[in-house]
């Protein structure tokens, strides 16, 4: 809602608008909505208008005023004449004190208490300290790093064959001609020997 319609809504109801104003309103909203916001805009300012702070609040605040020095309180700068007169008074006082001191003269010094020229002796003190300086030692060390290298199946085949013997014979493997396994003789074919075993004394 633009400012123009807002102003219209506060002043006139939709029925009171002239044709141009009605057209402007209808470009933005319906006539019902216009009358509705008119009621709201008229009612809102007077809502709770009768609410007043308690009188004691004013008094409480005024009592706090002299008790609290404002944090950023600054004095008004002194006028020029005041500053100049302060400088003059300070200069006059300095001159008076100087004149009085000059007039007083040097103090009487008795010969037996006359100051003696101060003698300065320079001693050389030798001291041996033990200093521990941290020293950085560089040592060589060997670090073993292992890493897994991934290869393609074709590239890995010869490496794998060289490392492990084939578990299963391939087609082109030649058959080994091992000698025929010798078997023993049955006791049934040698009665003497059988008798030796079964003979009971």
């Amino acid at each position: 809602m633009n400012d123009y319609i807002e102003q219209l809504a506060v002043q006139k109801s939709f029925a009171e608008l002239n044709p141009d104003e009605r057209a402007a309103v209808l470009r933005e909203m319906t006539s019902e909505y216009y009358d509705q916001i008119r009621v709201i805009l008229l009612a809102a300012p007077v809502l709770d208008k009768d609410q007043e702070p308690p009188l004691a609040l004013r008094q409480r605040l005024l009592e706090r005023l002299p008790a609290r020095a404002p944090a950023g309180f600054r004095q008004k700068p002194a006028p020029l004449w005041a500053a100049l007169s302060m400088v003059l008074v300070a200069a006059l006082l300095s001159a008076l004190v100087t004149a009085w001191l000059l007039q007083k003269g040097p103090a009487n010094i008795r010969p037996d208490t006359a100051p003696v020229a101060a003698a300065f002796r320079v001693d050389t003190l030798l001291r041996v300290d033990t200093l521990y300086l941290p020293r950085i030692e560089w040592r060589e060390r060997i670090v073993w790093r292992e890493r897994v290298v991934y290869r393609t199946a074709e590239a890995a085949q010869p490496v794998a064959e060289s490392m492990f013997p084939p578990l299963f014979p391939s087609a082109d493997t030649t058959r080994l001609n091992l000698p025929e396994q010798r078997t023993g003789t049955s006791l049934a074919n040698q009665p003497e020997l059988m008798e030796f075993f079964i003979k009971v004394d």
Partner: protein
Amino acid sequence: MFKSNRHTIQSASDETLMQRLLRRDEQAFAALYDRYGARMYRYFYRMLWRDAAKAEDFTQELFLKLIEKPHLFDPSRSFRTWLYTLAANLCKNEYRRKSPADLDWPAPATDWQSVYLPEQLDRELFETKLREALDGLGEIHKQCFVLRYQEALSVAEIAAILDCPEGTVKSRLHHALQKVAGQLEYFKA
């Protein structure tokens, strides 16, 4: 002479009174309070869910700030805008402190369909429902609505107070008005 001084204070601008408050001028503070005390109290009352005790506390806190830190006021700015900025920040803190559950839209007490409305708007009922509708607004929309339609500040002033572009203020006002109107649909004239 006293009368003349009083007259000077009454006709002095807010900014001049603030300059005098820097020198702890009690009359200047009293004049500022008389100009803005009730207004700020009502602002807090409207913003803080019509809690009179809270409105009083916040008004006191606001004016104590004037007493304690008058040097924070920039004389090149409008005093009114600065005062509302302080007040808006106090409200913002209060809204942050308030748990979201407390800010929920209150459940309707009655079924609106069954409410009999005479042709003449029932002013009291309307005002109650308008208050409820305003309470249902979020902090930023309520700030805009209260400052514009209840405190009668200009959009430019609200933008300065809330530190946002004027377009944002207008958009928030539009949204706030739409939401309030939606809540008061049954009061269509």
